[in-house]
């Protein structure tokens, strides 16, 4: 369950970090010609980071406090500032990871939308109601896509009229088993689309099972559509006005990019990209032949992920946000309530860290002692009010009956140990995911990570402790405090296609891609793989990938003899293919440069 950090609302100017004020001058010399650069922008809970990366590594970096009431402005000024005095023609594209749609969902600031669902036997769909304007109409498909009951078109029309009269403009239509046969969803859209601005169909927002999750996913897509569209138009307009005409992409929760324009039809893909940004930011620094745990230590939470040979592990179903469980593809992210600003308290003589955060560290005028304050006492943190930190830790020390220094040591140690315990728990959860074939049950891969990659504000201090108390090989991601933005910049397109083929019906379909095709007899798994991969490549290009940059995997391939009356009548083939999440082709050069810069202590402005 992803828990989101609280947002700090504050208005402030753009600050260049790491640059003393005197160097905040305009550069008169433009950057050298002939170098391709990419902008990465990541909106975090507290700060928005913008970076410009290129063949020289990290060219420029900016950190701005996030003002949630004016996210649009933060994004423009970030983009504007990062491109100031740069030759725009040198910029390849920009990738944006924002919390715009995420915040709207978490804060429940969504417009009213409508839903029409058809279900059939099973759990009553009333249990999956997402909103007031949620209408169940008769109609049903079975698990193999056979029609059990035709949709009640009169009821559909009634529902649509009532929604329209209530001012609804966006509607989600979801049928159970629509991914096996989308005919009902399509028919319903046919009836209602003249009455609404946009209709989202279940089988288009995801090709995966789970009717309740598909309902939620269609609902969220409809709900965030107007916001995401306005954002897109506003960004485009502002950039056009400033003459900054570069292609824009968004970062998705699965660590992949999608062309901004295409994302208008799939606005749900813009949700919860934050955790993915930090994972992508660490890939370049992970070994491609090892299993690595990535730890992003934030203020309120530490977000964890796993890289296997440099490839991030995916979540089994999809994003979970607020009370919504979805099918929006996401990287596996395991969040624990332990961070730099977690509240430290003593109860019954025992020390407790988090899971809550009541404010920043006392060293920064916060109300309660935190692990950051412990770091101040231990002399590992600077640029804050050490006295205030000491006072806070002293109070804890008294309750424990130890010296202030000892209390600080214990707080920091416990925080680190608990983070490592959670990491081990995450690995254990991944290894106990159910499997459904004999081969996987007996010979399935169990992950045994040997490396830790740490990023986030206090990364170096924590990394030091992790090395001391565990067997992991620990390293810190260079420029760990803007690694998210770097990861955002360097991500490439990723997507997946699910193909069903029935050699008895002689039909193949990939409902999410709106693809149905008749088959010739003798269709095999190899044919299905080819067909699915072709669809995948087309999809990736549509979403803005460059054709040279596609690494594809078959993530699931199942083939079943279909037998009726003791005779084999055909094969039921299911195949899932993906463009593997990862970094763009040129990333190695850029990452190498960043590593060099980091070793040389270079701090670009």
């Amino acid at each position, binding site marked *: 369950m992803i828990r989101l950090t609280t947002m700090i609302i504050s208005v402030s100017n753009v600050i260049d970090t790491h640059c003393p004020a005197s160097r905040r001058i305009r550069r008169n010399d433009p950057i050298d010609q002939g170098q391709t650069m990419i902008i990465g922008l990541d909106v975090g809970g507290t700060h928005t980071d913008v970076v410009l990366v290129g063949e020289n590594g990290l060219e420029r970096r900016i950190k701005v406090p996030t003002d949630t009431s004016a996210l649009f402005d933060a994004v423009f000024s970030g983009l504007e500032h990062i491109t100031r005095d740069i030759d725009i023609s040198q910029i390849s594209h920009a990738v944006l990871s924002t919390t715009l749609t995420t915040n709207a969902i978490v804060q429940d600031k969504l417009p009213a939308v409508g839903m029409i669902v058809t279900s059939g036997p099973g759990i*009553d769909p009333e249990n999956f109601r997402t909103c007031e304007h949620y209408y169940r109409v008769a109609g049903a498909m079975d698990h193999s896509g056979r029609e059990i009951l035709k949709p009640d078109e009169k009821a559909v029309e009634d529902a649509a009229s009532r929604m329209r009269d209530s001012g609804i403009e966006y509607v989600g239509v979801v049928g159970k088993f629509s991914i096996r046969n989308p005919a009902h969803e399509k028919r319903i859209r046919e009836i209602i689309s003249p009455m609404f601005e946009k209709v989202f169909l279940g089988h288009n927002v995801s090709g995966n099972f789970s009717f309740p999750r598909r309902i939620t996913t269609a609902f969220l897509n409809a709900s965030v559509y107007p916001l995401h569209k306005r954002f897109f138009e506003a960004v485009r307009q502002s950039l056009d006005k400033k003459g900054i005409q570069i292609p824009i992409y968004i970062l998705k929760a699965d660590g992949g990019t999608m062309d901004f324009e295409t994302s208008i039809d799939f606005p749900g893909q813009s949700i919860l990209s934050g955790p993915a940004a930090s994972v992508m930011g660490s890939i370049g620094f992970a070994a491609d032949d090892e299993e690595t745990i990535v730890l992003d230590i934030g203020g309120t939470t530490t977000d964890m992920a796993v890289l296997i040979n440099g490839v991030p592990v995916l979540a089994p179903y999809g994003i979970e946000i607020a009370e919504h469980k979805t099918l929006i593809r996401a990287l596996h992210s395991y969040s624990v309530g332990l961070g730099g600003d977690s509240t430290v308290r003593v109860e019954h003589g025992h020390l407790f860290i988090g899971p809550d955060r009541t404010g920043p560290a006392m060293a920064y005028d916060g109300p309660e002692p935190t692990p950051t304050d412990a770091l101040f006492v231990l002399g590992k943190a600077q640029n804050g009010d050490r006295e205030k930190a000491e006072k806070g830790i002293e109070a804890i020390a008294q309750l424990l009956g130890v010296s202030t220094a000892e209390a600080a040591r214990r707080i920091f140690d416990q925080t680190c140990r608990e983070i490592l315990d959670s990491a081990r728990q995450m690995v254990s959860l991944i290894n106990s995911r159910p499997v459904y074939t004999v081969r996987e049950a007996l010979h399935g891969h169990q992950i045994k990570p040997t490396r830790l990659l740490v990023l986030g504000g206090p990364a170096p201090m924590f990394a030091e402790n992790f090395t001391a108390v565990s067997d992991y090989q620990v390293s810190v991601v260079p420029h760990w405090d803007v690694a998210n933005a770097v990861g955002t910049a360097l991500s490439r397109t990723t997507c997946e296609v699910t193909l069903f083929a029935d050699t008895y019906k002689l039909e193949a379909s990939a409902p999410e891609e709106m693809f149905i095709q008749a088959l010739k007899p003798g269709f095999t798994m190899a044919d299905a793989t080819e067909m699915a991969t072709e669809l995948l490549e087309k999809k990736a290009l549509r979403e803005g990938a460059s054709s040279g940059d596609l690494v594809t995997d078959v993530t699931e391939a199942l083939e079943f003899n279909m037998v009726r009356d*003791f005779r084999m009548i055909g094969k039921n083939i299911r195949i899932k293919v993906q463009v593997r999440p990862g970094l763009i082709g040129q990333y190695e050069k850029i990452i190498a440069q960043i590593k060099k810069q980091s070793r040389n202590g270079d701090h670009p402005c």
Partner: protein
Amino acid sequence: MLKAKTHTGLVFFPAYDWAISATHPEREERLLYTQDQISEEGLLDVEGIDEFKAGVVDIKDVQRVHFCVPDARSVMTESHFISAGGAKTIGKAKMDGLVDRGFALVRPPGHHAMRVVHGGRGFCNVNNEAIMIEYLRQAYGVDRVAIIDTDCHHGDGTQDIYWHDPDTLFISMHQDGRTLFPGTGFNNETGGPTAAGTTLNIPLPPYTSEEGFLTVLEKAVLPILQEFKPDLIVNSAGQDNHFTDPLTNMNFSAKGYADLTARLKPDIAVLEGGYSIESALPYVNVGLILAMAGMDYSHVVEPEYSAERLRQGPSITATIEKTCQQVIDTWNDRQNIRIRMQENVIYAERHNTVFYDTDGFYESQHETLQVCRECSGVLKIDSSVERKMRVLAVHIPRKACENCRKTGYQWFEKTDMGPYDMILLQDRPEDQYRVRKK
């Protein structure tokens, strides 16, 4: 968010890469649409329904229950280790308190696997429920267990394993053996001399529908369970009694099975048979899981369901009432039956012929039970398959008295190897399993 009233565990192992043969009912495809239905319902997202990865059983887990000839690996494939492992996993989850109830939706099935195993029969090789139960007895000290076998076929394997065990109540309700494999499971099969009455069979006429099954439950099963007071209730939940099943002739339904589950309240259910893989299994299993979890299952209706068409006739109802009464009478009379069977008997003998339909051969068994007043009695089985192997299998029961233990070891150590290829020993009290080879 949907919440389960009872914390329910699920182990799902469809063995998508294993089959008896490409077109056999027990093939890769069998649970495919069931998984599709369960996934589409979003059952695993329900708070209080947890899925566990199927574990794998040890050889010892198998030896604790079966005498495998010549050994476990010869009569099992990898899939059997995992299928039984799935039942073991759910049993452990229940006993560890991770869940309150659990369902092992696994294949291949097991209730036709008997104490001595020479190969596969009735699509079964080893008995998943027995392996789980004996493991739980060994590891958690579980004592009294009731196995309610609602599969359409008589659970002859389970019956055989627990024939002489008074601490295990085995009740099987099934389509009458005169009309269906394995051809057994009649009223007069009530257990050995030291356990009579804890094996009870309820043969049902073809075309029995929901009403019939639920009558048996209410009139016979539940009252007997109340008196037996088991530590655990295990349901062998075979679903081949469905009105669409291609191999049988009963008229049960998804809602009926859910009702049965809701009333029986099994601690653990284990899938057995069921071969109507599109029209029955997806719906029955969703209904069963919802019922176990204490959730509403009233909307689980098969597209082909029609209450009127499935209703059973009055003669079926009458037959079932009579059969229920016979079962109750047997149960009430069990002590007397035991006394009568034990009178003046030191060694009780039985002859059995077991047909292995999957592998196509007959096994001949001669069983000798030492009738004991202190415990259920040590027993030995002389088992042979023509032109294959002949073995002597000695079973020292879990609560064996000292005398029976001594006798068991004498039989094992002192019997002349002569005619036997192997002599095997199950020492349940010490959890030791040994073999003497020629």
